[in-house]
């Protein structure tokens, strides 16, 4: 990488880590660290609402794919991906709820089971991105530029990438990278679906592939419901390649989101440390080496 890296101030970094940890303990709590309680409440209600609605729709059958971690009999963790992004909800469900299968019923009895899987899985992924959003909000509050402000803070850029691969880069002004990421990821995903006769998205048949696929975001969440009636009825010649491609597309979305976060963070810090606020409009793009020069200390007050 040819750019010079800018880093948040130590105190800001500490608060960003605190926001992430708080978000892990309770999705939305991290936004309190950024002084955004309403956003925190929104995230909390959204994540828990989706999670428990999803559990209800499928009789808690998601719990069958999880494992309790309880050293010495003390339940510390309920390992269930991707729901684990919502740590408290997953922990509560693993501890106090019981899968319908334990009562002799099977997920097939639940007509909206694919919607249930999609909702609970999406809740876990959204909870993880809520943590990133909270950290970005902390950065935006602690190191606010005196001059022109970038359109999005890093957390929003990452979240937008989850909503649609490439959208986060688009909002930071990186049109080529937006189309590049979006085209490659969505193209690979569609090709994988085609190779699997559009029956790739099935949690009951291959739960680990499904988890990776869900990281693609709402496109995969909606398709897993819309394509619920399509199932593998025979072994397709390139079925495995289809599963690999769709799963890789989901994981590539995470890489794109990490890049969107990093670029937006650099843009934000460069704007925050620009010596002369009147120097002109903010422009995205690669950092110049001299952009790392120390500048006026950023404001300590939240907006």
């Amino acid at each position, binding site marked *: *990488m040819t750019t010079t890296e800018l880093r948040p101030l130590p105190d800001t970094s500490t608060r960003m880590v605190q926001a992430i940890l708080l978000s892990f303990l309770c999705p939305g709590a991290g936004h309190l660290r950024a002084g955004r309680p309403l956003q925190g409440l929104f995230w909390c209600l959204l994540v828990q609402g989706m999670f428990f609605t999803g559990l209800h729709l499928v009789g808690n059958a998601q719990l069958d794919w999880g494992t309790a971690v309880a050293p010495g009999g003390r339940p510390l963790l309920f390992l269930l991906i991707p729901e684990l992004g919502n740590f408290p909800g997953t922990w509560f469900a693993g501890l106090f709820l019981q899968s319908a299968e334990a009562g002799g019923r099977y997920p097939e009895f639940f007509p909206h089971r694919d919607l249930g899987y999609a909702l609970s899985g999406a809740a876990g992924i959204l909870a993880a991105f809520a943590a990133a959003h909270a950290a970005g909000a902390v950065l935006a509050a602690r190191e606010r530029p005196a001059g022109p402000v970038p359109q999005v803070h890093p957390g929003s850029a990452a979240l937008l990438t989850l909503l649609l691969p490439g959208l986060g880069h688009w909002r930071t002004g990186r049109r*080529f990278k937006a189309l590049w*990421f979006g085209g490659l990821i969505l193209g*690979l995903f569609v090709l994988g679906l085609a190779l699997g006769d559009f029956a790739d998205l099935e949690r009951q048949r291959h739960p680990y592939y499904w988890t990776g696929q869900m990281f693609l975001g709402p496109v995969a969440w909606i398709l897993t419901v819309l394509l619920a009636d399509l199932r593998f009825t025979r072994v397709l010649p390139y079925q495995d*390649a289809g599963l690999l491609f769709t799963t890789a597309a989901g994981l590539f979305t995470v890489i*794109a989101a990490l890049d969107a976060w990093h670029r937006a963070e650099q843009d934000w810090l460069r704007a925050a440390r620009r010596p002369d606020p009147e120097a002109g409009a903010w422009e995205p793009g690669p950092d110049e080496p001299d952009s790392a020069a120390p500048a006026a200390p950023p404001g300590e007050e939240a907006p």
Partner: protein
Amino acid sequence: MTTLAVQLLLLLVFSAVLGGIASAYRDDDRRAILRGTVRRGLTFALAVATLAVASWVVDLLFLRPDS
């Protein structure tokens, strides 16, 4: 039934996408991304193809019941 030609084509497609994602993660400049995509994609495809050939040779020499 799969064919070698389609498998190679799928390998090239996946390698190109992988190279494209890795390059876009590493670089922010369009030209650097395009250059890196070709280099990384070919490197990955070649590595996988080499492993495939090595596996095939080991199969021929040691793993067949009549070998």
